[in-house]
């Protein structure tokens, strides 16, 4: 599954970051490395972008970019 499908309040582990080099490296720099725990916080009023919680801070990213992040949901 990919990150944009995660519902608010759900948690997941990052499996893999895809996408072009620039975005990928930036996401890795921001701490979204494989194995990291993510919590989906909410969507912006217009449904996009998304807010996630990662490494004890809040990060906003677009659906389109989130769809490049493969995750495994924790139930």
């Amino acid at each position: 599954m990919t990150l944009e499908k995660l519902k608010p309040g759900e948690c997941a582990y990052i499996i893999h970051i895809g996408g072009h080099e620039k975005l990928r490296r930036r996401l890795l720099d921001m701490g979204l490395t494989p194995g990291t725990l993510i919590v989906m916080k909410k969507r912006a009023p217009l449904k996009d972008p998304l807010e996630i919680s990662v490494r004890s801070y809040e990060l906003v990213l677009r659906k389109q970019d989130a769809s490049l992040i493969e995750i495994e949901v924790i139930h």
Partner: protein
Amino acid sequence: MIAALIGNQNCGKTTLFNALTGGHQRTGNFPGVTVAAKIGKIKERPQWTLVDLPGIYSLSPYSEEEMITRDFLLREDIQVIINIVDAAHLERNLYLSLQLMDLNMPMIIVLNMMDEIEASGSVIHRSMLEERLGIPIAAISAVKNTGFSELLEKLDRVDRAEKKDQHPVYVGEIAKARLKIAALLENKGKFADFFAVKLLEEDPFIRNHLKLPPKTQRQIEELLIQLDETLPFERYETIAMQRYQWIDEISEQCLHIVKKKTSFQIDKILTHPIIGLPLFAISIFFVFWLSFDFVGGTLSSVLSAVLEYLSQSLLDYLTIKQTNPLLISLVIEGIVPGVGSVLSFLPIVVTLFFNLSILEDTGYMARIAMMIDRPMRAIGLSGKSFVPLFIGFGCSVPAIMATRTLPDSQERRKTLLLIPLMSCSAKLPVYALFCAAFFKNHAVYVMMVLYLLGIIFALIFGFIFRTNEEAVPFLLELPDYRLPSVRNLVMLSCEKAKDFISKVLTIIFLSTLLIWFLQRFDVHLDVASHPQDSLLAMIGQMISPVFQPLGLNDWRITAALITGISAKEAILSSLAVLLNSTIGSLAGNLGALFTPLSAFSFLIFVLLYTPCLTALRTMIKETRSFKWGLLLLVLQTGFAWITAAIVYQLGRLLL
């Protein structure tokens, strides 16, 4: 001795800078780095010069600001890095610290926001952290002014501090390869370790910068190929993972952070799916209403009355003293109304900046950027470009500089193009006076129409120049909500007031003198008997036919618009001199030059025509392109002319 202040965005860097330097800063340019970094002397250790560098997340070259900081660190002779970190978000902040540590430079880590840590019941085991990092740590609260003496002590001892071993960050094959590459770069001095890591990360800029001989390049190439075969993940990914693994280990041992819930709860309301956007609109309205009307506007009329009274007293005094009439004319018809008419708008400008920085400091601006990202995308921009555009309502110059935070050069250029369309606070006095003079009962609405028109034109331009390329990655950190620091707000307001007053006393003063001189004397440099015979009338009359289609027939308008290129406020000061007005009577006298319709077309022209010289200069400096600045001047003025002409001609048909 130079100390470089480095940290993530929003970790209190500016607050610390102001506290350490006592706000006595100046903007300095460093050769080789096109950055106007803030620099200042540390108040209690004057031998140290502190340089405030842009807030960054990493030393990778993905945004202008990261490049600036990196170039600065590599090129300048820096004695110490002061790395300020947000103690509540230590994990992500330490990622930058690890990269800074690769530079092998003396370094101090400053844990900021310790007051919040203590208040929330979180614990940081400082001595253990210090030992693990191998770097001296000072714990402070920049807002509450605590812990500075400890920081200064560490600074005093920084060159004598024994080099401690740090817990190794890189492990396994990466560590081995790093050592091998560093050995090949031995002649590159103290940065060999840093360069080695950057080569492992495939950093193209460092590779070009090093200019390695082909043989060494081949050796490194082979090393990297061998390394890649042994790694289960891609190389950059592996390095990032190792750094974060190291941070995770340390965090587990040294940190116990209790997350605050307040930000989450405030967000529930402010970014609410339904009321979030209306609240945003209301807050913007509120900012403008406070600045133009309730606080700024009121104070401005008080100041204007005071200045009027002073000018009258001065006139009485000069008359009694039987001063030379030409000198009286210079002071009473030139300098006082010219400078005074602009000076009286000081409260509005300061209030506007004050309000804008409250939005920024509380963390609400980041939420706005999040909420507005979707609509901004329609014109090929992101929520991040909203911030510089919004600052543009204050002043184009800091707005132009704020575009450095945009990671994409396309987006940056486009934002730069749109910034001048945001009515800056220099145009505000012109709007305010004209609205009061011609649209009495609807002044606030006409003012808002002008602001809106600028925004609508920006949307149209954005749409025309939108690109079909893939959208730029948009990553934005949401800071915790915070009460803004009163000291910072007051300091910033004083700074803006000082800027404004010094502008009035220099550019506006000079342009007032010039206008007075040109309209007082004729071609033979004799005192002109009629204003129509003056030098200024001659120049103005040559150009004014151009403005005929806009309904602006008088040479005095042309003259005022020309002086407006130096600074927009000069339009007012020139009109005040040319209409022989006092500070209070200027609004009433404007009726001699304008009808309500031509006043509106004039305002449209002022809204859209060329940015002031300072803004143009900043634009050229930031884009490093003279052509770009020139293009902007010509295009905008042409566009302003066309639009104002259409408005005037349509208005004549309809009214």
